[in-house]
C-alpha cells in the first residue's frame, strides 16, 4: 500500500480547519509592514501545513496500529460493511452502467474513423476495470460514505459521545475508526468488482443493441484482451481509495470543533480531501503498475 500520509499534503493544507488568516491590505509603512506580512504569511502557511501533515500522519499511524491490536468490535465492523458495501451498490451500479454505455458509444464513434470498431469491447473492458470502475466508485463512495462518516463521528465528538466512550473504557479509535477503515478497505474492492461487471454489461448492451455487434464476438473480444492485471490493479486501487475515504472521514470528524457548523466544515473537508487524494493516488498506483 502506498504511504497514505505522504501524498495528502496539498489537500490537507487547503482543507485545514483553521487556515492562516489573509494578510490585511497594508496601507501604512509599505517597507516594514509589507515585508513582515509577506514573511509572516509564508511562515504561517508552512507551519499550518506541516502541523496538519503531522497530525494526519499521527492519526493514521495510530489508527493502523489499532487495527491489529485487540479488542476488536466485530458487531461494529459488520454494521459498517453493510453500510458501505450493500447500501452503496445502487449508486455504484448506476454510475458504472452508464459509464460503460457512454464508453461504448464514444469509442465506437472514434474507432469508426479508423475502421477499428472491433476494438470497442476491449476498450470498454480495459477502461472500466483499470480506471473508471475504481475511480468513479471511489468518488461516489467518498460523497456517500465519507460524508456520512465525518458527520457521524463529528457529531459524536461535539456532543461528547467520544469522551463518553473513553470514560466507559472503550477506545474510540478501536470502536469508531478501526471498523470504518477495515470495512471500507474490504468493501470497496467488492463494490468495484460488481461495478466492473455492471459497467462491462452496460457496454455490451449498447454494443449489441445499438451498434449491432454480434453478441458472441463482443463477449469474445471482451475476454480475449482482458488481463488479470487490469482487474487486480483496479481492485488494489479500490482498497486504497476505501482506506483514504474512511481515513479522511474519520480524521475530519474526529477533529471536529464547535457544534453544527464545525461538523459541516468537517464533512466538506472530508469529501474534498478524499476526492483529491483518490485522484492523486490513482495516478501514483497506475504509475506503479503500468509504467515501464
Amino acid at each position, binding site marked *: 500500500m502506498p504511504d497514505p500520509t505522504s501524498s495528502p499534503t496539498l489537500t490537507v493544507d487547503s482543507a485545514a480547519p483553521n487556515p492562516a488568516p489573509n494578510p490585511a491590505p497594508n496601507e501604512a509603512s509599505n517597507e516594514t509592514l509589507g515585508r513582515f506580512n509577506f514573511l509572516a504569511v509564508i511562515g504561517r502557511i508552512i507551519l499550518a501545513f506541516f502541523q496538519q501533515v503531522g497530525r494526519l500522519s499521527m492519526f493514521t499511524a495510530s489508527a493502523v496500529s489499532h487495527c491489529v491490536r485487540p479488542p476488536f468490535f466485530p458487531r461494529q465492523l459488520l454494521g459498517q460493511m453493510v453500510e458501505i458495501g450493500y447500501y452503496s451498490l445502487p449508486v455504484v451500479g448506476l454510475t458504472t452502467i452508464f459509464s460503460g454505455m457512454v464508453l461504448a458509444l464514444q469509442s465506437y464513434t472514434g474507432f469508426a474513423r479508423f475502421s477499428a470498431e472491433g476494438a470497442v469491447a476491449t476498450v470498454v473492458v480495459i477502461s472500466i476495470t483499470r480506471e473508471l470502475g475504481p475511480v468513479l466508485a471511489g468518488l461516489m463512495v467518498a460523497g456517500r460514505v465519507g460524508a456520512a462518516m465525518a458527520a*457521524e463521528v463529528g*457529531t*459524536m465528538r461535539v*456532543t*461528547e*459521545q467520544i*469522551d*463518553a*466512550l*473513553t*470514560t*466507559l*473504557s*472503550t*477506545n474510540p479509535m478501536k*470502536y469508531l475508526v478501526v471498523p470504518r477503515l477495515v470495512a471500507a478497505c474490504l468493501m470497496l474492492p467488492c463494490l468495484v468488482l460488481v461495478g466492473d461487471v455492471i459497467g462491462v454489461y452496460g457496454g455490451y448492451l449498447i454494443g449489441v443493441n445499438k451498434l449491432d455487434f454480434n453478441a458472441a464476438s463482443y463477449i469474445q473480444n471482451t475476454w480475449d484482451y482482458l488481463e488479470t492485471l487490469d482487474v487486480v490493479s483496479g481492485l488494489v486501487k479500490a482498497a486504497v481509495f476505501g482506506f483514504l475515504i474512511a481515513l479522511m472521514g474519520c480524521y475530519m470528524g474526529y477533529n471536529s470543533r464547535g457544534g453544527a457548523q464545525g461538523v459541516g466544515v468537517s464533512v466538506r473537508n472530508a469529501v474534498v480531501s478524499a476526492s483529491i487524494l483518490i485522484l492523486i493516488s490513482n495516478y501514483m498506483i497506475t504509475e506503479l503498475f503500468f509504467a515501464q
Partner: protein
Amino acid sequence: MSASPPKIALSGVKKRFGRKVVLDGIDLEVAPRESVVIIGGSGTGKSVTLKCVLGLLKPDAGSIKVDGEEVVGLGDRARERINTKFGMLFQSAALFDSLTVWENVAFGLIQGHKMARRKAREKAIEKLAQVGLGADVADLSPSELSGGMQKRVGLARAIADDPEIIFFDEPTTGLDPIMADVINDLIVKCVKEVGATALSITHDIASARKIGDRIAMLYHGKLIWVGPAATVLDSGNPYVDQFVHGRADGPIQMELRG
C-alpha cells in the same frame, strides 16, 4: 484530612486554552466514600477539572492521583484500566444516539465486562428502574426522550457497572424540582449505600448541600473555599456568600460585554 489515603488527589493542576487560563493551580483531595461538590459560575472550569481527572484533557502542570497512582500522562491501556473505576454523567448526557436506551446503559457491561447481551439487558432495565424509568423506554432511541429523561439514562449508564468513583457533571440542571430531588436522593444513595466516592459539579446550592459532604468553590481558576457542606450558607467568605445567595452585586463581577 482523613487517615486513609485519598481516593482522588489533585495538586497544582493547571490548564489553559490558548491564552485563556482556566485552571490556575487546583488542590483537592477526596477521601474514600466521601462526596465532594464543586460549585462555581458557568465557564469557570468545573467541567474542565473533571475532564482532567478522566484523562479527556491533559493538564499543563500539576499531578492527579487516583488511589495513590499518578494518572497524568498515562498511556491508552493504563488509562482504560483506571477508567474502569470511573462512572461519569456528562453535562449533556452524551448518550450514544446510534444505540438504544438499554444498550447505552449496558455499554460498559457489554464492552468492558464482556457480559452476555441478554443478561446486560436485564441489568440495564434494573438500573433504569432505579432512576425512575420504566422498561418501556429500554428499546427507544435516546433522541426520542426528553432532556430530563436523557439525563436519567446518563445517570443509569454512569452507575451501571457499580463504579468505585462517580463523577456527576450538573446532574440536576434542566430537571424539574421534583425530579432534581429524586436524582439528588439517588446520588446520595449511590454514595452512602454502595460506598462509592463522588465528585460532583453543580451550581444548584440545594443540590450541592444535599449530595455533598464537602463543598469547594471554584473561582478564577482556584478553589477559593473548601469546607463542610453544612457551613456553606454561612461560610464567612464574601465570594461564597454572594454565590450561594445568588446576589448580582458583590466581589464577583460578571464579565458583561456589549
